[in-house]
């Protein structure tokens, strides 16, 4: 379990990345959703002991991130969003270094690295200099590091950004096989829905909604999304797209008015909450 207790982060006098965030993350996979600059990465960096909070703290498996940093680092592994491989070293070498930094023996690090690379269809590239790999392959190496580390808690900051659809499915499949607690951030609602049991929506440093996927979607029970360019009826307007949440019995009427009808998904939680906050 992860308990976030009033975590704030201020980067300069006026720029608050997080504003007193409180949450208890109980489910095995939690996705943190938010737009660019919402505070997702700051939250993950604080929880994974890379960044000090300005105030507040958090507990991971009962260990305080400020007081028990060393022990916290033994139970977590974190794959930062912007990390890139050292171009001149191979994936295998960098995975071995990462695992040895975590306390693995050299032979164990090699064995686990090869196994994880194989899991992600990257085995044949294990000895290639990393700067010869595609962007997606490089990202998969980082995911392989998290797989190989086998930590009880794993933080994955946008693990599938830049991956092609096939690679994304491979990564999803690998994540699903893990038994660790996973906190992942993503822009892809489809990914959150596919992988997580629990969703935390962040906007402008605040949690705007938090719950299981099922409970969050239940607020839209019986609803459909109607979308139209320059539509006159709307609950939300994003650029020139009008979005209206309608009852199932209104579908025919809105189709006649030229609206596209879509099923409700996590996009709608993010869109409605996020946009409402801004307006």
């Amino acid at each position, binding site marked *: 379990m992860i308990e976030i207790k009033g975590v704030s982060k201020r980067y300069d006098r006026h720029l608050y990345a997080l504003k007193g965030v409180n949450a208890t993350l109980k489910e095995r996979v939690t996705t943190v959703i938010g737009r660019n600059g919402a505070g997702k990465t700051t939250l993950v960096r604080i929880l994974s002991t890379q960044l000090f909070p300005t105030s507040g703290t958090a507990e991971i498996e009962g260990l305080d991130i400020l007081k028990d940093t060393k022990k916290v680092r033994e139970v977590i592994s974190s794959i930062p969003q912007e*990390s*890139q491989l*050292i171009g*001149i*070293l191979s994936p295998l070498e960098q995975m071995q*270094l990462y695992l040895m*930094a975590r306390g693995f023996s*050299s032979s164990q690090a090699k064995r686990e690295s090869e196994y994880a690379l194989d899991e992600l269809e990257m085995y044949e590239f294990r000895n290639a200099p990393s700067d010869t790999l595609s962007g997606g392959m490089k990202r998969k190496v980082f995911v392989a*590091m998290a797989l190989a580390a086998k930590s009880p808690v794993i933080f994955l900051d946008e693990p599938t950004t830049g991956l092609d659809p096939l690679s994304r499915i491979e990564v999803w499949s690998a994540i699903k096989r893990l038994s660790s607690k996973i906190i992942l951030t993503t822009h892809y609602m489809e990914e959150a829905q596919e992988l997580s049991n629990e969703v935390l929506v962040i906007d402008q440093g605040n949690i705007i909604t938090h719950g299981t996927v099922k409970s969050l979607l239940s607020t839209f029970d019986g609803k459909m999304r109607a979308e139209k360019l320059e539509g006159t009826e709307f609950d939300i307007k994003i650029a020139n797209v009008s979005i209206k949440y309608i009852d199932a019995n209104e579908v025919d009427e809105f189709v006649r008015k030229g609206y596209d009808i879509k099923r409700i998904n996590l996009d709608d939680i993010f869109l409605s909450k996020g946009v409402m906050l801004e307006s």
Partner: protein
Amino acid sequence: MNPKFVLYFAWYYGFYVIKRGPSYLLASLSLPLALLFMVTIFTHGTLIAFAIAGGPIAIVAANSINGAADAAFFRIQIRIQDLYVATSLTSQDYMFALSMSYLVFSLPGIVLYAILGAYFKVFTLSSALPIIGILILLTLAISNLSFIIAGLLKHIRNVWGITAILSIIMTVLPPTFYPFYYLPRGVIYILSVSPVTPAAVLFQGVLFPKAVGMYSSVQLPMFVILIAETLVLIFLGRRFIRWRE
């Protein structure tokens, strides 16, 4: 301390960089070899021994100061440092691993100069131990200086210019390629702001005891200065590395 990580990192990032990118190695050797050539020509060969003795110091100092670019690149650009922060690794492990990788990267240059030194009878077997000790201290001091520089920079672009300037200042101005006793004593102490100066003075004391002779009284103060500077820079390096921001 995680010696396994330090050793593997030093080997991978020291040796494999040479193997896969030999141009970096040639670039790091070009300045000391050019200076060796110049000193030999302009002194009609009289100071060739000093220019050879200064080679390993210049190589180690230049490679270590260029480490600022690596440290800044790893922290700001490719964010590899972030990856290691959330592990059992300490900032000291990480910094020591990077420092040792610069020493490994410097090894071919040191070997080249060892061969030249043996040929010109500059280096002897008995001088090997103190020379290695001085080079390790110099690596630690300068690489920690490079971590301080890297920690102060917000943009990676600035690091290239700063390290290029520092590399020249630190390797050419101190008595690396010429006898330290050509300088007034006061100037030696002023120049010892850079750890390269005490390292060069100590090197010359070990290799040319007869030539140094009456100037040997600066050896002990220079030894103390080098140790003190190394310790202070290690302490400050830890503060500036921005391990957990």
